[in-house]
């Protein structure tokens, strides 16, 4: 067993052990009160983080599920690095965020105890799933990791147990089940057709299959539930505002990226032999992605809750990423240049979104520092996300660079315009945070996690294990091209705010979850229809039973009549016999 094997074992086993330890402690009869989020618990993602920096490796295990193939290649290493880092920082933040609840639990509040137990168990379980799906290169392990992450995260969403949280959790779960169904359908179809058990095999199978486009479409929508494809995104703005800040950070940073990784794993990206149908799907994805990027920005700015605004910002960012992935299908030649940009974009968005979500909890309980400094720091990840600064700028530039090289200038313009939307959203978030800032009193861990996430966001290209020279910082001349969308966004917000104040018109606020309410109406309508139908069926059944009973009665009556004849015959046996004998005698005489 080489060192990297041990680290792999720890990367999966350590969080699992933390979950089991938390579970075991629930039923141990210890006298002193528990500390639920121990340092062991915080350290759960550390081995995975280490693993990402140990280089490429491959593992084959025949006996695991349908046969395991785990691999750390260029994409999965980078993915594991930012995912594990975000989980580490969010865990640190959580230790501070839940300090109050911990005190309550220690004081004997049973509801708080229950919530903390649940968190202590389900958090590391979700993490295990997330790590597994990144290293998995065979379909069964990937699906296992995905399902484990999805369903364990339900407990994180409904943590507070309020009515809104349960509603958000329900939206999350319903869409998750729908997504799992679509994924299962797509995986079975693709794997059955190509007779393969691994993801690379699936990719090639989809590229060469006659109906590959439909398999890819199923998988696009299935993973799209996580990645917030328009129409399937409704759980995001419902679940994010109600989940605790660290949970929102990993939900929005790491877990929705799992959907994106799913696409990278199953789509024949950069394979030129994939055919026209796949390119058509790519175009549909491109349009849907851009629509989500703009639509979410336009809808999101009317949200009251800063976390709801951030959820819409995630949908918008994922829309941009969707359109980039779609380019890999539409123009396969672009992909070799584009993928490092996509990975950097994903990593940067994960950490920036993580920092922003942690920031919402920091602004609710501001630390003892001057407010301008605090809000300056809170604005940094947003600035970076809009591409005006730090890693965001590098990420935007590498993306533009890759697209320029292949001459896709139209898309560049659209993505630049979408960046205006991003800056609108992050400005609105900051404004809402300012409005809703609370009493001072942050915990050190809470603050530490957030600050570390901030630094990691800005420096993403420096630590992310990407191939050498795949991303480069932009030259100074290009600087203005990257910054103007941000300034435009700020300008629109300031002007808009002024107009709203002057006009004193009705304050607009749209419900979070947009289309969810439409779906709910449809389902209610369908339910009524089904009830009527079921009532009719029950009536038909009753009629059939009644008519069969009537037939039975009829038959019984006939049988009874026969029995009556028999009785009559028995009664008159002797007479009949004599009559018969007489008839026979007469016959013989004749």
């Amino acid at each position, binding site marked *: 067993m080489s060192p990297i094997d041990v680290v792999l074992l720890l990367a999966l086993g350590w969080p699992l052990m933390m979950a089991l330890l938390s579970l075991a402690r629930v039923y141990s009869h210890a006298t002193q009160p528990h500390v639920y989020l121990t340092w062991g618990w915080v350290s759960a993602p550390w081995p995975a983080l280490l693993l990402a920096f140990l280089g490429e490796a491959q593992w084959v295990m025949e006996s695991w*599920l349908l046969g395991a193939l785990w691999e750390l290649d260029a994409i999965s290493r980078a993915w594991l690095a930012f995912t594990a880092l975000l989980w580490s920082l969010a865990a640190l933040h959580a230790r501070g965020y839940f300090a109050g609840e911990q005190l309550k639990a220690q004081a004997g509040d049973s509801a708080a105890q229950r919530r903390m137990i649940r968190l202590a168990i389900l958090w590391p379980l979700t993490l295990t799933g997330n790590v597994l799906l990144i290293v998995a290169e065979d379909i069964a392990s990937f699906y296992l990791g995905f*399902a484990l992450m999805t369903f364990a995260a339900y407990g994180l969403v409904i943590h507070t147990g309020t009515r809104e949280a349960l509603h958000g959790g329900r939206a999350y779960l319903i869409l998750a*089940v729908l997504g799992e169904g679509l994924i*299962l359908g797509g995986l*079975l179809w693709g794997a*059955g*057709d190509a007779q393969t058990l691994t993801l690379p095999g699936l990719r090639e199978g989809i590229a060469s299959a006659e109906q590959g486009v439909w398999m890819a479409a199923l998988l696009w929508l299935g993973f799209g539930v996580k990645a917030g494809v328009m129409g399937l995104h409704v759980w995001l703005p419902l679940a994010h505002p109600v989940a605790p800040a660290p949970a929102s950070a990993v939900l929005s940073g790491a877990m929705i990226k799992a959907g994106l990784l799913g696409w990278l794993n199953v789509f024949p990206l950069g394979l030129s032999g994939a055919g026209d149908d796949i390119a058509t799907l790519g175009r549909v994805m491109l349009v849907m992605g851009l629509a989500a990027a703009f639509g979410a920005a336009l809808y999101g700015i009317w949200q009251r809750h800063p976390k709801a605004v951030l959820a819409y910002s995630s949908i918008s960012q994922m829309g941009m990423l969707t359109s980039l992935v779609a380019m890999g299908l539409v123009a396969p030649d672009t992909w070799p240049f584009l993928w490092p940009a996509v990975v950097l974009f994903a990593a940067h968005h994960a950490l920036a979104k993580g920092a922003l979500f942690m920031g919402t909890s920091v602004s609710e309980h501001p630390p003892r520092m001057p407010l301008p400094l605090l809000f300056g720091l809170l604005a940094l990840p947003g600035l970076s996300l809009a591409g005006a600064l730090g890693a965001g700028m590098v990420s935007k530039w590498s993306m533009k660079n890759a697209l320029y090289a292949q001459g896709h200038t139209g898309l560049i313009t659209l993505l630049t315009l979408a960046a205006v939307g991003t800056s609108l959203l992050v400005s609105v978030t900051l404004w809402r945070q300012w409005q809703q800032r609370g009493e001072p009193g942050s915990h050190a861990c809470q603050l530490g996690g957030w600050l570390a996430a901030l630094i990691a966001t800005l420096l993403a290209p420096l630590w992310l294990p990407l191939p050498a020279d795949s991303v480069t910082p932009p030259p100074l001349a290009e600087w203005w091209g990257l910054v103007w969308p941000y300034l435009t966004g700020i300008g629109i917000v300031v002007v808009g705010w002024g107009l709203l104040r002057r006009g004193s018109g009705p304050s607009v606020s749209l419900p979070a979850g947009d289309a969810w309410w439409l779906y709910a109406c449809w389902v209610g309508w369908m339910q009524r229809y089904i009830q009527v139908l079921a009532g009719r069926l029950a009536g038909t059944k009753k009629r059939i039973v009644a008519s069969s009973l009537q037939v039975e009665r009829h038959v019984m009556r006939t049988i009874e009549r026969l029995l009556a004849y028999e009785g009559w015959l028995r009664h008159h046996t002797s007479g009949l016999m004599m009559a018969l004998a007489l008839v026979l005698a007469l016959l013989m005489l004749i």
Partner: protein
Amino acid sequence: MAWLPLVTLAVSLVAAAIIFWLPEHAWHRRTWVNLAAAVIKLMLVGFIILRIVNGHEDTFSLPVVENVAFVLRADALGVMFAGLSSLLWLCTTIYAIGYLEDSPNRKRFFGFFSLCVASTLGIALAGNLFTFVIFYEMLTLSTYPLVVHRGNEKALAAGRVYLRYTLTAGVVLLLGVVWLHSLAGSLAFSEVPSLIHYLPDYGMQLSMIFVLLVGGLGVKAAIVPLHGWLPRAMVAPAPVSALLHAVAVVKAGAFGILRVVYDVYGIELTVALGMNTLLAVIASITIIYGSLRAIAQQELKPLLAFSTISQVSYVILGVSLFGPSGTIGALVHLLHQGLMKVTLFFCAGNYAEELGIHRIDDLNGAGRRMPLTSIAFTVGALGMIGLPPIAGFISKWYLGVGAIQANMHTVVLVLVLSSMLNALYFFPVLYRLWFCQGPAHGQGKWPEERRLGRLETSGWLLWPTMLTALISVLAGLFAGLPFSPLEWAIRVAALEYLP
């Protein structure tokens, strides 16, 4: 060693005889006989498995009249079912000992329990249709006393319905067997059936016989609309339900259909007659119908009953898919469904015995009070939905891949839809177990709490539950290991598709 199948069968019969002979109050001796018989049988089946791996196939044959023989044959497919039944018999026996503590008529119960398992083993090892029918009818008669064990009006009514369904089905099955015998003579089960030679001349008759056979077997396999007896039979004690659903009755029907398709007709002939499409359609209807009915249930055991109706038809669905993957899916689900369903019924029994819970909405917070049982239930439920790493995923995977390879894409739709429906009725139960507050958190009280043991409940009830749950996880997680259910199913399927 031709006597090996006979001895294996005889173990349960002898155990039944001894139990009937022992007096009612001889608790210890009866327990010893029960457990010893179960262990010996498990060991014998293990021995048979080893012999099959080494290439020996034992057959016991006894001519009854000319052309009709009583044949016991330990082939790979039969031993697969025999292995499942003897493993789960051991678990269920331990469970039943704990479950029926201090209840009356235990002698009758365990006697017929052993007879029931003996008939299941007979069904597994039967070497031709004649022998199969004998044990199939014996199973009907030996389970009746178990179904009506409680002896109250409801149980007796359920028993009447059960007999009405199964005896009628037995007549239909017999009719099919006799007709087939008159057409083609004595038919031993074999991997390369010779019936295909009759296809050009007797195609119509063969189709009609097939419908008769499947109709007769379909009642026990609870195919819609022949399933009416199953939800009613839920009045039986929990270990009986567990055995009925996991190995004995329902599985016997499904196993019979497997035998008819693979070893009497042969998969080529079945496809040539178009009968596999018929099977796929009725199995799909049953799967969806069972899931839909399960959603509407208020009580735990009827929910599990409708879930069984749905899940057992996965086996029939797999049979209808022409190709190795479909066959592997069918065979492996026969085992996996047994393991997971027995776990779920054990859990339902634990809740009922320890806390008096029968209704789903009484389960609030039961995860706190009975964590191990609830974990086992969660394993079973997730397995039924088909989530990895539990065994149910493996079967669902092979069924889906088999459907694609057989070019029946709609079947994948049925599988996915059924998974989602399963989630729809199992997730609310899990939510109540783990996320709702209940009596364990000081809100309200359990319907009827009894403290049966030092652990969360009596060890007799808890350990078998944990064992079957553990095996369900391991069978999925390490499906690639030798002697796993999957590996054995692949071995059997390889025999069926030999050129």
